[in-house]
């Protein structure tokens, strides 16, 4: 673990990314303390510029505090990213593991299903799912998970395929371990690092998809998120730039930081790259 941290911290931008993410998480965790009121509250004069009328980052067209929205929205955006990723990773592991471990007909069938979901144009499919399930935070999470899992499934399948013929797995068979135990206890831990890398990047993509859906008017109208703020402020970008620029910057910084961390993890976990450094 310590060795891993040593390798990780050699990549300075990855450390920077980690610091930013910790800050964003802290912000989300202390939202109710920083702005202890409903972020939808009409807090003052509409369209106040940043720094005026007591608004740090300005107010939107109804007089809602942009800063309060960003702080409360951090919670939503991070949660959407995390939960959608966890769901997608779970489905992906399930499909990939069964497919790679058992092979044959099962593999064939599961991979066909994966291909189906990979072949559908994903953003339009996400829009379709949200529209049909009615816009809400749940449908957004479901839609993002549904379009994200096939990548994980393929990755996990590949790892399982190559690991299952390794000696230590053969040894487990000889010891009479159950298939489930071998998959969960022996193989899975050995392919965690690429899963962690792809998962970290998926969190970032999920946040972007959420903002894209909100831009198209498909977000949850009852929950404050960065996507919601952008959707509400986009038509006034020219007159009141702060309304959607600050949440946009919040997304940018967060997605950037997550990607830097992902890249750092990749470098630190990938043994081949290690040799060159």
């Amino acid at each position, binding site marked *: 673990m310590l060795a891993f941290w040593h390798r990780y911290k050699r990549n300075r931008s990855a450390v920077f990314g980690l610091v930013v993410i910790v800050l964003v998480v802290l912000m989300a965790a202390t939202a109710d303390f920083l702005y202890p009121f409903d972020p*939808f*509250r*009409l807090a003052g004069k*509409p369209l106040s510029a940043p720094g005026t009328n007591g608004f740090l980052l300005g107010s939107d*067209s*109804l*007089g809602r505090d942009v800063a309060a929205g960003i702080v409360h929205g951090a919670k939503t955006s991070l949660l959407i990213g995390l939960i959608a990723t966890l769901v997608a990773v779970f489905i992906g592991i399930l499909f990939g593991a069964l497919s790679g471990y058992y092979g044959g007909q099962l593999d064939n069938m599961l991979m066909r299903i994966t291909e189906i979901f990979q072949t559908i144009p994903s953003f339009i499919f996400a829009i379709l799912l949200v*529209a049909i399930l*009615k*816009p809400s935070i749940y449908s957004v999470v479901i839609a993002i998970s549904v379009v994200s899992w096939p990548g994980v499934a393929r990755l996990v399948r590949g790892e399982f395929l190559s690991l299952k013929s390794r000696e230590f797995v053969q040894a487990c068979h000889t010891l009479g371990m159950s298939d489930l135990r071998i998959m969960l206890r022996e193989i899975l831990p050995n392919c965690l690092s690429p899963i962690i890398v792809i998962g970290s990047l998926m969190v970032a993509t999920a946040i972007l998809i959420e903002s894209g859906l909100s831009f198209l*008017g498909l977000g949850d*109208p*009852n929950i404050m998120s960065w996507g919601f703020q952008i*959707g*509400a402020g*986009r*038509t*006034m*970008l*020219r*007159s*009141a730039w702060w309304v959607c620029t600050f949440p946009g910057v919040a997304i940018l910084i967060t997605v950037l930081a997550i990607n830097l961390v992902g890249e750092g993890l990749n470098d630190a976990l990938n043994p081949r790259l290690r040799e060159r450094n």
Partner: protein
Amino acid sequence: MKNIFKGSLVALALILSSVAAKAQEAGGTLAFLVQPEPPTLASYVSTSGPIGLVMPKVYEGLFDYDNDGKMVPMLAESYEMSADGKTVTFNLRKGVRWHDGEPFTSADVKFTILEVLKKVHPRGPNSFREVSRIDTPDDHTAIFHLDNPAPYMMRSFSAYESPMVPMHLLEGQDIKSAPLANNPVGTGPFKFVEWKKGQYIRLDKNEDYWQEGLPYLDRIVGRFIPDASTRTAAMENGEVMYAAYNAIPNIDAVRLKERDDIDVTTDGYSMINPMALIEFNTKEGPFVDPAIRRAISTAIDRRFMIDTIFFGYGKPATSALSSNYKATNLHAEMPNYPETGDVDAANAMLDAAGYARDGDGVRMRAVLDIIPYGEDWRRAGEYLKQAMGDIGIEIELRYEDVPTWLKRVYHNYDFEMNVNYFYQLPDPVLGVHRHYGTNQIRQGTHFVNSSRYSNPELDALLDSGSKEPDAAKRTATYQEIQEILANDMPVVNLFELEFLTVYNTELKGAYGSAMGAYGSFREAWLED
């Protein structure tokens, strides 16, 4: 009544000739915004807004209406109404030809009214419901025989409301699916050339237009730009020169107004009378009791909504009828419509009606549906959620797509309260009655009485309001109607929308008609 109309026709002819004396320049292409892309071009089947922007340039009506609501002769040169109001004779213009060269005759008028508008037009069956027979003694005379006097009918002859269509291209076909729909052939100043889906509709000058010297423009192109910010940019860049019906968001319109080359007007919407409102489910759910609905109307700060969401454009509602009906003495101010809202009074009303707050300060919970027609309405919903929170009504917002929403509100009645807007049109019979009459509880029909409000006393008043030819008696009837509605509040009217038209100042002559953007643009011209 007959004489008033006759007189105004003469006055208009004078105005028209004086307009023609100005120095117009012929030629040029006018690109304007059509938002959204229309589903079809069959304006005789669908009154969808964007169709209205395009088709009155191609099809014409018997009359147009000027900014004072006076009739301007178009395909009809004049008309005479019998003393009992039950026979109307139209004298049609001679020498008018359809774009394919066929002559326009009284047979076209008869066919259009009886076989097309009265049967397949969304509002035609109402506008022309009293027309039982049309006689055509010669090619240029059409005599309408009515069962009862129908003063509102004379307000519905514009190209947008009642377009005249060619009988020879529709007769014997299924009108709703005839190929004329998307290959329109009219008598108007512009001919249909091409509809490039996702891009534009192109109309070229009709060289054989019946009015000598018109139109001035060589071409009109309606462009479709889905994103509001881009529409604004296209206007700033001079790529489009005219944008009506809030195609440019108000916040940008307010900014563009400051420029020398762009102007903004609220003219051209007096025939529309749009009203923003909340429909309540009066049959089941939390809003069965009129006391709650009155309290909600009392709590809402209408001024705030107008100022923040529509940037000052709009008038607070003061009754179930639009204040634009003041011109015909039909509008009266009513209680329960405080302009800036009175939260204390609203709370007192709810306390008195016995709706106590629970530990969280909540009296009741409800779901508010929002009309899925863009960002402004979402903001309206978000404001209402906050405002109703102040009087102890906890709201959950629901924003669904158009088909889901229509099905929920007008078919399944599966809603509690719904933000919406209705066109009240130039007469309450045309635009308001459909909201409140018992006979307007029509499951599956859109934009009618979804509140399922039913009051026999009101029904009787509505009925006499539609038939009463005497102006003073009509005023009294509508006074009573408004009193009942202000008390029962099946619908809480929010504010009268003022749509904006943003235009490049190089464009002249596009604003003379009360129809505004739904006009023909035959006198529009470009200054260099």
